[in-house]
């Protein structure tokens, strides 16, 4: 029984995409609303600070985006450059980790 890595990466990519779709929609709508009359830190924090909803919303967003972006970048590099193999997989995992760390830090900062 082989590891079927590509199949599971494919599935993770599609599943994270399904999670991201409604979140992205919500984010876009929120942004259009938020930038009316200019954008200030106070306004952003007023909406997000202490909110369970926004914590969950952006927490999930960060997790899904980290997975989705890492797998996507790995595909692009594998196909368009000579780089492949374990070192590329490690780099992709590194990107995922970077987004998770920066993302949860940002979520913590605004909620």
């Amino acid at each position: 029984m082989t590891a079927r890595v590509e199949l599971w990466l494919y599935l993770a990519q599609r599943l994270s995409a399904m999670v991201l779709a409604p979140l992205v929609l919500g984010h876009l709508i929120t942004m259009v609303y938020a930038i009316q009359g200019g954008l200030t830190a106070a306004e952003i924090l007023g909406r997000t600070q202490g909110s369970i909803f926004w914590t969950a919303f952006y927490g999930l967003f960060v997790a899904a985006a980290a997975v989705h972006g890492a797998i996507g970048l790995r595909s692009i590099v594998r196909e368009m450059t000579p780089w492949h193999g374990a070192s590329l997989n490690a780099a992709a995992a590194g990107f995922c980790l970077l987004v998770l760390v920066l993302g949860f830090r940002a979520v913590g900062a605004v909620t």
Partner: protein
Amino acid sequence: METGKGDGGALIVEVWRGREEGFFQTYSVPHQEKQTILDVVSYIQRRLDATVSYRFACRIGMCGSCAMMVNGAPRWTCRTHASKVAKGGKLRLAPLRNLPVIKDLAADMTVFFDKWQKAGGSFVPSQPGSQEFAVVAPDSKERKAASAGIECIGCAVCYSACDVVAWNPDYLGPAQLNRAWTLVNDVRDGDRNGHLAAVAVDAGCHACHSHQNCTVYCPKSLNPTASIAGLKRATVLAALKGEI
């Protein structure tokens, strides 16, 4: 000289000579109405330069042997009219992309058929020795799915059109995956999971990005992208159930 109207003007035809390394040699071919690219190449080889190598067989759009790159697109030369593709009376002919070159316009199909086997493109009998006909309802979902892809004659036009093949030398290829899908849908086949396992590999069906170059260029109007989408669904389902 402006041609393309079958007015007896000349076509300027650049023909690839050599193997992977080589050059384009230019010939002047009188243009006639309803002339196909096969007519053009045959004229060159018979009247101008007997050393040009190319392939054809049936010359009526049934065998796929005459496939080559015509002005950057993979086509059957016997079914391509010169007037349709020769912009400004110029033609550039090259061997099929993504395949090694034997000589001039003849590409080496070995790897194409090796991948066919690798993708599990052979029927696995389920009841050898049975005296009964297998009963397959013509309007069943599986039969319709198989019928949609079964007319493939292995001409490699889709394989040449495919960018994933160009970027990933291990990619099984659209024709190969299309054939696998028809077998997955063949209810007489004895190893559906084996077929799914063969395509659920690195550089298998999940490497397809749905560019649809294959679908656009298939001379038989088949849709390998749709077949591959079917394989993606079937393999994921089978993997989740632990069958592959």
